[in-house]
Protein backbone atom coordinates (compact mmCIF):
# COMPACT_ATOMS: atom_id res chain seq x y z
CA UNK A 1 0.00 0.00 0.00
CA UNK A 2 1.34 3.47 -0.86
CA UNK A 3 1.90 5.91 2.01
CA UNK A 4 -0.97 8.16 0.92
CA UNK A 5 -3.41 5.25 0.75
CA UNK A 6 -2.19 3.95 4.06
CA UNK A 7 -2.56 7.39 5.58
CA UNK A 8 -6.08 7.80 4.24
CA UNK A 9 -7.13 4.47 5.74
CA UNK A 10 -5.46 5.32 9.02
CA UNK A 11 -7.17 8.70 9.06
CA UNK A 12 -10.57 7.11 8.58
CA UNK A 13 -9.90 4.70 11.42
CA UNK A 14 -8.74 7.60 13.57
CA UNK A 15 -11.93 9.52 12.85
CA UNK A 16 -14.01 6.49 13.79
CA UNK A 17 -12.21 6.17 17.12
CA UNK A 18 -12.50 9.90 17.79
CA UNK A 19 -16.22 9.84 16.97
CA UNK A 20 -16.71 7.09 19.53
CA UNK A 21 -14.86 9.04 22.18
CA UNK A 22 -11.66 7.01 22.04
CA UNK A 23 -9.36 9.98 21.60
CA UNK A 24 -6.23 8.17 22.75
CA UNK A 25 -6.58 5.49 20.08
CA UNK A 26 -7.29 8.18 17.48
CA UNK A 27 -4.13 10.03 18.54
CA UNK A 28 -2.08 6.84 18.23
CA UNK A 29 -3.38 6.21 14.71
CA UNK A 30 -2.83 9.76 13.52
CA UNK A 31 0.68 9.76 14.98
CA UNK A 32 1.47 6.64 13.01
CA UNK A 33 0.76 8.37 9.69
CA UNK A 34 3.97 8.73 7.69
CA UNK A 35 5.42 12.20 7.29
CA UNK A 36 6.05 11.92 3.59
CA UNK A 37 2.71 10.77 2.19
CA UNK A 38 4.16 10.71 -1.31
CA UNK A 39 4.69 14.45 -1.02
CA UNK A 40 0.98 15.04 -0.45
CA UNK A 41 1.19 18.02 1.91
CA UNK A 42 -2.55 18.61 1.87
CA UNK A 43 -3.26 15.11 3.16
CA UNK A 44 -0.55 15.54 5.80
CA UNK A 45 -2.14 18.82 6.93
CA UNK A 46 -5.57 17.21 7.23
CA UNK A 47 -4.14 14.45 9.38
CA UNK A 48 -2.23 16.99 11.47
CA UNK A 49 -5.47 18.91 12.01
CA UNK A 50 -7.38 15.78 12.98
CA UNK A 51 -4.52 14.79 15.29
CA UNK A 52 -4.84 18.21 16.86
CA UNK A 53 -8.56 17.70 17.47
CA UNK A 54 -7.99 14.27 18.98
CA UNK A 55 -5.22 15.65 21.22
CA UNK A 56 -7.56 18.39 22.42
CA UNK A 57 -10.25 15.80 23.03
CA UNK A 58 -7.82 13.97 25.31
CA UNK A 59 -6.84 17.19 27.07
CA UNK A 60 -3.39 17.77 25.50
CA UNK A 61 -4.10 21.35 24.47
CA UNK A 62 -0.52 22.59 24.15
CA UNK A 63 0.42 19.96 21.57
CA UNK A 64 -3.00 20.30 19.92
CA UNK A 65 -2.31 23.97 19.31
CA UNK A 66 1.19 23.30 18.00
CA UNK A 67 -0.13 20.70 15.55
CA UNK A 68 -2.83 22.91 14.11
CA UNK A 69 -0.46 25.87 13.84
CA UNK A 70 2.01 23.68 11.94
CA UNK A 71 -0.74 22.72 9.49
CA UNK A 72 -2.00 26.29 8.94
CA UNK A 73 0.37 27.27 6.11
CA UNK A 74 -0.67 24.24 4.08
CA UNK A 75 -4.37 24.58 4.91
CA UNK A 76 -4.23 28.14 3.59
CA UNK A 77 -4.68 26.69 0.11
CA UNK A 78 -8.13 25.43 1.14
CA UNK A 79 -10.05 28.43 2.53
CA UNK A 80 -12.89 26.45 4.11
CA UNK A 81 -10.46 24.15 5.99
CA UNK A 82 -8.23 27.09 6.84
CA UNK A 83 -11.22 28.89 8.32
CA UNK A 84 -12.08 25.81 10.34
CA UNK A 85 -8.51 25.53 11.63
CA UNK A 86 -8.50 29.19 12.69
CA UNK A 87 -11.82 28.74 14.48
CA UNK A 88 -10.37 25.69 16.21
CA UNK A 89 -7.45 27.77 17.47
CA UNK A 90 -10.06 30.17 18.82
CA UNK A 91 -11.85 27.25 20.49
CA UNK A 92 -8.61 26.13 22.18
CA UNK A 93 -7.98 29.60 23.59
CA UNK A 94 -11.64 29.88 24.57
CA UNK A 95 -11.47 26.61 26.47
CA UNK A 96 -8.23 27.64 28.12
CA UNK A 97 -9.82 30.88 29.27
CA UNK A 98 -12.86 29.02 30.51
CA UNK A 99 -10.99 26.36 32.40
CA UNK A 100 -7.87 28.20 33.48
CA UNK A 101 -5.08 25.76 32.79
CA UNK A 102 -6.86 23.92 29.99
CA UNK A 103 -10.37 22.84 29.15
CA UNK A 104 -12.00 20.11 27.14
CA UNK A 105 -14.41 19.87 24.29
CA UNK A 106 -13.81 20.44 20.62
CA UNK A 107 -15.92 19.98 17.56
CA UNK A 108 -15.54 19.10 13.93
CA UNK A 109 -13.19 17.16 11.69
CA UNK A 110 -11.09 18.31 8.80
Amino acid sequence: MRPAEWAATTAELGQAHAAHGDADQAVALYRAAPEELDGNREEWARIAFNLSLALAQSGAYAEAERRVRAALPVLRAEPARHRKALATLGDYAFEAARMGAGGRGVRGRA
Partner: protein
Amino acid sequence: MRQREWERAAEAYAAALELGAQVFQAAGSDAVRRREVRESWHVHARASYALLRRGQLADALVTLDRGKARLLGERLGLAPETGLDTERILALAPAGGALVMPVVTPAGGAALVFPAGRRTPAPEDVLWLDGLTDLAVVELLGGPTDAPLGAWLGGFMAERGALLGSPGRLAWEEAIATAIGKLWKLVMGAVHERLRRLGLARGAPVAIVPQGGLSLLPLAAAGAFPR
Protein backbone atom coordinates in the same frame (compact mmCIF):
# COMPACT_ATOMS: atom_id res chain seq x y z
CA MET B 1 -3.77 35.12 32.38
CA ARG B 2 -7.38 34.62 31.33
CA GLN B 3 -7.42 38.02 29.65
CA ARG B 4 -4.59 36.81 27.43
CA GLU B 5 -6.59 33.69 26.51
CA TRP B 6 -9.70 35.74 25.73
CA GLU B 7 -7.55 37.97 23.56
CA ARG B 8 -6.09 34.98 21.69
CA ALA B 9 -9.56 33.52 21.22
CA ALA B 10 -10.92 36.82 19.93
CA GLU B 11 -8.04 37.18 17.47
CA ALA B 12 -8.32 33.64 16.11
CA TYR B 13 -12.09 33.91 15.79
CA ALA B 14 -11.79 37.28 14.04
CA ALA B 15 -9.43 35.74 11.46
CA ALA B 16 -11.77 32.76 11.04
CA LEU B 17 -14.80 34.98 10.59
CA GLU B 18 -13.06 37.21 8.07
CA LEU B 19 -12.00 34.20 6.04
CA GLY B 20 -15.43 32.62 6.48
CA ALA B 21 -17.08 35.74 5.07
CA GLN B 22 -14.89 35.43 1.98
CA VAL B 23 -15.74 31.74 1.60
CA PHE B 24 -19.43 32.54 2.06
CA GLN B 25 -19.41 35.28 -0.56
CA ALA B 26 -17.41 33.21 -3.03
CA ALA B 27 -19.58 30.12 -2.52
CA GLY B 28 -20.94 28.88 -5.78
CA SER B 29 -23.79 26.88 -4.32
CA ASP B 30 -26.42 27.01 -1.62
CA ALA B 31 -24.98 23.85 -0.12
CA VAL B 32 -21.63 25.53 0.51
CA ARG B 33 -23.33 28.62 1.95
CA ARG B 34 -25.43 26.46 4.26
CA ARG B 35 -22.32 24.59 5.39
CA GLU B 36 -20.59 27.87 6.17
CA VAL B 37 -23.57 29.09 8.19
CA ARG B 38 -23.83 25.78 10.04
CA GLU B 39 -20.14 25.66 10.87
CA SER B 40 -19.67 29.29 11.83
CA TRP B 41 -22.75 30.33 13.79
CA HIS B 42 -21.19 29.31 17.08
CA VAL B 43 -18.00 31.19 16.18
CA HIS B 44 -19.88 34.50 16.11
CA ALA B 45 -21.29 33.84 19.59
CA ARG B 46 -17.97 32.75 21.07
CA ALA B 47 -16.10 35.60 19.40
CA SER B 48 -18.64 38.04 20.76
CA TYR B 49 -18.32 36.60 24.25
CA ALA B 50 -14.51 36.72 24.14
CA LEU B 51 -14.71 40.36 23.04
CA LEU B 52 -17.13 41.11 25.86
CA ARG B 53 -14.65 39.57 28.31
CA ARG B 54 -11.98 41.81 26.79
CA GLY B 55 -14.21 44.83 27.33
CA GLN B 56 -14.52 45.47 23.58
CA LEU B 57 -18.26 46.00 23.79
CA ALA B 58 -18.89 47.65 20.43
CA ASP B 59 -16.95 44.94 18.58
CA ALA B 60 -18.80 42.26 20.53
CA LEU B 61 -22.14 43.75 19.59
CA VAL B 62 -21.31 44.02 15.90
CA THR B 63 -19.95 40.46 15.83
CA LEU B 64 -23.06 39.06 17.48
CA ASP B 65 -25.32 40.92 15.08
CA ARG B 66 -23.31 39.77 12.09
CA GLY B 67 -23.85 36.14 13.05
CA LYS B 68 -27.55 36.74 13.28
CA ALA B 69 -27.58 38.62 9.97
CA ARG B 70 -25.81 35.80 8.20
CA LEU B 71 -28.14 33.18 9.62
CA LEU B 72 -31.27 35.14 8.71
CA GLY B 73 -29.89 36.12 5.32
CA GLU B 74 -29.27 32.50 4.45
CA ARG B 75 -32.57 31.25 5.86
CA LEU B 76 -34.73 33.95 4.31
CA GLY B 77 -32.81 34.27 1.06
CA LEU B 78 -32.12 37.91 1.79
CA ALA B 79 -29.00 39.74 0.87
CA PRO B 80 -26.22 38.76 2.71
CA GLU B 81 -24.32 39.15 5.71
CA THR B 82 -23.38 42.72 6.04
CA GLY B 83 -24.62 43.32 9.54
CA LEU B 84 -25.18 46.72 11.10
CA ASP B 85 -22.81 49.11 12.77
CA THR B 86 -23.05 49.79 16.50
CA GLU B 87 -25.15 52.91 16.18
CA ARG B 88 -27.73 51.26 13.95
CA ILE B 89 -27.98 48.23 16.23
CA LEU B 90 -28.55 50.40 19.28
CA ALA B 91 -31.15 52.40 17.34
CA LEU B 92 -33.24 49.21 17.19
CA ALA B 93 -34.22 49.72 20.83
CA PRO B 94 -37.89 50.75 20.71
CA ALA B 95 -38.75 54.24 21.95
CA GLY B 96 -39.27 54.25 25.70
CA GLY B 97 -38.12 50.64 25.91
CA ALA B 98 -35.01 48.54 25.49
CA LEU B 99 -33.16 46.12 23.26
CA VAL B 100 -32.10 42.76 24.75
CA MET B 101 -29.52 40.53 23.06
CA PRO B 102 -28.54 37.30 24.85
CA VAL B 103 -25.25 35.53 24.09
CA VAL B 104 -24.78 31.82 24.81
CA THR B 105 -21.48 29.93 24.83
CA PRO B 106 -20.02 26.82 26.49
CA ALA B 107 -18.39 29.13 29.06
CA GLY B 108 -21.62 30.81 30.08
CA GLY B 109 -23.46 33.70 28.62
CA ALA B 110 -24.52 37.27 28.92
CA ALA B 111 -27.45 39.47 28.09
CA LEU B 112 -26.83 42.85 26.53
CA VAL B 113 -29.55 45.23 27.66
CA PHE B 114 -29.62 48.61 25.92
CA PRO B 115 -32.15 51.26 26.87
CA ALA B 116 -33.58 53.36 24.06
CA GLY B 117 -31.37 56.32 23.25
CA ARG B 118 -28.07 54.60 24.06
CA ARG B 119 -25.38 55.79 21.60
CA THR B 120 -22.54 53.51 22.59
CA PRO B 121 -22.51 50.33 24.68
CA ALA B 122 -21.45 50.75 28.29
CA PRO B 123 -20.18 48.17 30.82
CA GLU B 124 -23.44 48.35 32.76
CA ASP B 125 -25.28 47.14 29.66
CA VAL B 126 -23.71 43.68 30.08
CA LEU B 127 -25.37 41.20 32.41
CA TRP B 128 -23.08 38.23 32.97
CA LEU B 129 -25.09 35.02 33.14
CA ASP B 130 -22.70 32.22 34.09
CA GLY B 131 -25.41 29.55 33.99
CA LEU B 132 -26.45 30.41 30.44
CA THR B 133 -24.32 27.77 28.76
CA ASP B 134 -24.85 25.93 25.49
CA LEU B 135 -25.52 22.80 27.52
CA ALA B 136 -28.14 24.51 29.69
CA VAL B 137 -29.99 25.70 26.58
CA VAL B 138 -29.73 22.31 24.89
CA GLU B 139 -31.16 20.63 28.00
CA LEU B 140 -33.88 23.22 28.25
CA LEU B 141 -34.80 22.48 24.67
CA GLY B 142 -34.57 18.72 24.62
CA GLY B 143 -33.83 17.43 28.12
CA PRO B 144 -30.68 15.53 29.18
CA THR B 145 -28.43 14.83 26.22
CA ASP B 146 -28.17 11.12 27.04
CA ALA B 147 -31.95 10.61 27.15
CA PRO B 148 -34.65 10.58 24.47
CA LEU B 149 -35.98 13.95 23.32
CA GLY B 150 -37.97 15.54 26.13
CA ALA B 151 -38.42 18.94 27.77
CA TRP B 152 -39.71 21.77 25.56
CA LEU B 153 -39.20 20.21 22.15
CA GLY B 154 -40.25 16.75 23.29
CA GLY B 155 -43.47 18.12 24.72
CA PHE B 156 -44.10 20.31 21.72
CA MET B 157 -43.51 17.58 19.16
CA ALA B 158 -45.45 14.87 20.92
CA GLU B 159 -48.30 16.54 22.75
CA ARG B 160 -49.18 19.87 21.22
CA GLY B 161 -52.31 18.50 19.54
CA ALA B 162 -53.53 16.59 22.60
CA LEU B 163 -57.04 17.26 23.84
CA LEU B 164 -57.58 19.66 26.71
CA GLY B 165 -57.40 17.76 30.00
CA SER B 166 -55.83 14.66 28.46
CA PRO B 167 -52.61 13.24 29.98
CA GLY B 168 -50.71 14.36 26.89
CA ARG B 169 -51.99 17.90 27.18
CA LEU B 170 -51.18 17.99 30.89
CA ALA B 171 -47.65 16.80 30.14
CA TRP B 172 -47.21 19.52 27.52
CA GLU B 173 -48.48 22.17 29.94
CA GLU B 174 -46.05 20.86 32.53
CA ALA B 175 -43.23 21.18 29.98
CA ILE B 176 -44.27 24.77 29.27
CA ALA B 177 -44.35 25.65 32.97
CA THR B 178 -40.93 24.07 33.50
CA ALA B 179 -39.41 25.85 30.51
CA ILE B 180 -40.63 29.32 31.40
CA GLY B 181 -39.50 28.86 35.00
CA LYS B 182 -36.01 27.79 33.92
CA LEU B 183 -35.79 30.60 31.37
CA TRP B 184 -36.57 33.03 34.16
CA LYS B 185 -33.76 31.65 36.29
CA LEU B 186 -31.27 31.45 33.43
CA VAL B 187 -31.91 34.73 31.63
CA MET B 188 -35.08 36.69 32.01
CA GLY B 189 -35.14 37.21 35.77
CA ALA B 190 -31.86 39.12 35.58
CA VAL B 191 -33.02 40.97 32.46
CA HIS B 192 -36.26 41.93 34.17
CA GLU B 193 -34.37 43.27 37.16
CA ARG B 194 -32.12 45.30 34.88
CA LEU B 195 -35.12 46.72 33.02
CA ARG B 196 -36.72 47.60 36.33
CA ARG B 197 -33.59 49.44 37.43
CA LEU B 198 -33.53 51.32 34.15
CA GLY B 199 -36.92 52.70 35.16
CA LEU B 200 -38.87 51.41 32.19
CA ALA B 201 -42.59 51.98 32.50
CA ARG B 202 -44.81 48.94 32.94
CA GLY B 203 -45.77 47.72 29.48
CA ALA B 204 -42.82 49.48 27.81
CA PRO B 205 -41.75 47.78 24.57
CA VAL B 206 -38.75 45.47 24.79
CA ALA B 207 -37.19 43.95 21.67
CA ILE B 208 -35.49 40.62 22.35
CA VAL B 209 -33.06 39.31 19.76
CA PRO B 210 -32.37 35.71 20.80
CA GLN B 211 -29.40 33.71 19.61
CA GLY B 212 -28.99 30.01 18.84
CA GLY B 213 -31.33 27.62 20.63
CA LEU B 214 -32.88 30.44 22.61
CA SER B 215 -34.69 31.41 19.40
CA LEU B 216 -36.91 28.35 19.85
CA LEU B 217 -37.88 29.11 23.44
CA PRO B 218 -40.61 31.40 24.83
CA LEU B 219 -38.38 34.09 26.34
CA ALA B 220 -41.18 36.65 26.46
CA ALA B 221 -43.36 34.27 28.51
CA ALA B 222 -40.67 33.51 31.09
CA GLY B 223 -41.63 34.10 34.68
CA ALA B 224 -41.36 32.88 38.23
CA PHE B 225 -44.94 31.66 38.38
CA PRO B 226 -46.17 29.62 41.32
CA ARG B 227 -46.73 25.97 40.37
